[in-house]
């Protein structure tokens, strides 16, 4: 599904990713952990095409396509979804309108006609209910005045509607209360399938109790310094990062 080879990226001549190698197969769930500032969000940004990064080396293929050569919107409709660490507010644009535009962009890319209004309304209602967001939020501005946790749940609503092939969720679990964490985990698990893959960027073992990862990676200094299974996450929870990053240095 996704193959990252020797990926180097920098911002304003400052190197942030220093040779990432990572292969994600269909149906797999990978957790990416690591200290603040280690480059986790940068990795998500580079994969989804956020402007401002310079790729200095390496390659990424997504289902056989050269991902780095595609515009962000092309990557999206090819099936790549980024759940933002800091979801963005778009005042005055209703959540429903925004998500419908997104759904239709994905449909257009598949050569499907626009979704009919009633069908969409019922889909978005279901997704909002699954995340226990009040349905009147459909008509509020995108993330406008949403609480931190509501914004994160709103990201999952979008993921549920778009059903991406690969979802990169950047700290979607941060800022969620205990119940919301369960809802979000259920949302993720509901989409898990043999064709769909996930990258869960997280600081907490708790999410991984609900969504069992196949692989766990530790990012430090823009490199994957250790990979393992869920046992690694438990060890990190108990011991912190010092022993892995120190070991790498």
């Amino acid at each position, binding site marked *: 599904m996704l193959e990252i080879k020797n990926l180097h990226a920098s911002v304003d001549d400052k190197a942030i990713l220093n040779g990432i190698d990572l292969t994600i197969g269909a149906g797999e769930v990978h957790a990416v952990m690591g200290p603040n500032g280690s480059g986790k969000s940068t990795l998500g940004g580079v994969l*989804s*095409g*956020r*402007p*401002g*990064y*310079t*790729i200095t080396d390496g390659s990424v293929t997504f289902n056989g396509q050269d991902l780095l050569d595609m*515009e*962000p*919107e092309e*990557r*999206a*409709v090819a099936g790549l*979804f*980024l759940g*933002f660490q800091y*979801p*963005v*507010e*778009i*005042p*005055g*644009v209703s959540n429903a*309108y*925004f*998500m419908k*535009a*997104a759904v239709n*962009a*994905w449909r257009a*890319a598949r050569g499907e006609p626009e979704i009919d209004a009633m069908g969409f309304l019922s889909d978005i209602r279901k997704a909002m209910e699954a995340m226990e967001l009040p349905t009147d939020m459909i008509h509020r*501005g995108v993330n406008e005045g949403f609480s931190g946790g509501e914004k994160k749940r709103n990201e999952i609503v*979008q993921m549920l509607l*778009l059903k991406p092939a690969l979802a990169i969720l950047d700290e979607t679990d941060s800022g969620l209360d205990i119940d919301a964490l369960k809802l979000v985990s259920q949302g993720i698990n509901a989409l898990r399938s043999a064709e769909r893959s996930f990258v869960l960027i997280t600081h907490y073992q708790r999410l991984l109790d609900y969504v069992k990862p196949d692989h766990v990676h530790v990012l430090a200094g823009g490199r994957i310094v250790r990979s393992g299974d869920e046992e690694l996450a438990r060890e990190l929870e108990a011991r912190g990062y010092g022993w892995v990053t120190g070991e790498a240095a």
Partner: protein
Amino acid sequence: MATSTEELRDWIKTRKYEAGFVTDLESDTLPPGLDEEIIRFISAKKNEPEWLLEWRLNAYKVWQDRHEPQWAHLQIPDIDYKAISYYSAPKSMADMPKSLDEVDPKLLETYEKLGIPLEEQKRLAGVAMDYVFDSVSVHTTFREKLADAGVVFCSISEAVQTHPELVRKYLGTVVPARDNFFAGLNSAVFTDGSFVYIPKGVKCPMELSTYFRINEMNTGQFERTLIIADEGSEVSYLEGCTAPQRDENQLHAAVVELIALDNAKIKYSTVQNWYPGDEDGRGGIYNFVTKRGDCRGRNSHIAWTQVETGSAITWKYPSCVLRGDNSIGEFYSVAVTNNHQQADTGTKMIHLGRNTRSTIVSKGIAAGQSDQSYRGLVRVSPKAEGARNHTQCDSLLIGPKCGAHTFPYSEVRHPSAILEHEATTSRIGEDQLFYCRSRGMSEEDAVSMIVNGFCKDVFRELPMEFAVEAGKLLAVSLEGAVG
């Protein structure tokens, strides 16, 4: 990966002007120049009564002693008022058409091109329209249906003939000739415009609409609109404007007067898309317009809504005089400037009566090297007990070279007044654009969506079908050559 501000700037630079064609008609155009003779000529051409000629000549005298306003945040090149032609009429209009069959087919074609078919059956359901082409009103649709309701909707020249008492009673009572330089000029030389009278207790059965277009070269357009809503009546009026694409500048100095008597309501909406000039700032319309509404009666209500995307220079402050007790004034505005456009626009709310209320919502969008100012005055007179105003003033900047300024003034002379003012300035964030794109939307769609969201509070005040139009117009205004 390109940085998106760069790209954005590029394609905003090359916005196309879709209404920029010229209609090839033979026309009766006065040679350039302005003196008493010209004014007599215009008045005679229109077969006006003596009092109106006197009124014009008096305005001309007043105007000669005045100067162009200097206080606006605009750079206005010197305008030679003697080099402008003050009257132009398509030749075939010399005797006004009695029915559509008599209208010059080329004129009809012009409107077709603009997407506004003149035939009644093709009209948006329920919209009556008056067309002002250069200086002359072409045709008013839906006359009979309006006449049944007792509504008078015609060109002002015609109203001078058919309802002289109404015109004489109200003309110039809201915007007198001495009000400002451009109003004085307009009063002297106005050539046409719309007239509306809604009788007591009548709720106008349809939206009324006027469509203005400047076609001839070197002509000024000085239309005059007068709308009177008698006691307990209600009307919604929409004006649309375009002009062809030309290298030289053209002057548009209109006056609009609204009068609402007891319990009457007037909603006046404008979608202005005059030619803004090219990428380097050549050509375009100078739009110097005086619009004022007088809430003369108790519980009267006047609402201005404007979407301004055109003109090289805009100088425009639709205002409300809240004279009647409990009267309400509203101003909702979206102004878009791009390339070298300049706009100084805003409103005045003059609270004279008791418990008068006003609302101001201004949304400015500046792109390219354009410069834009909001200028608003809220005045509360010593008698205006319980006056309230709420002002919301937001600017959205696209790119680093444009500017937005806010000049809110208030003069409060009653202690009970409550005035609230909120202002924000923001840029279309790269993070907003990226958020949309990461969901699969193109950059162009994303900009259009973000801008429309920003303007929503104003769009929802427009009549429904025009809200859709306005949204599209913004998209076109900010559209360009991506890729």
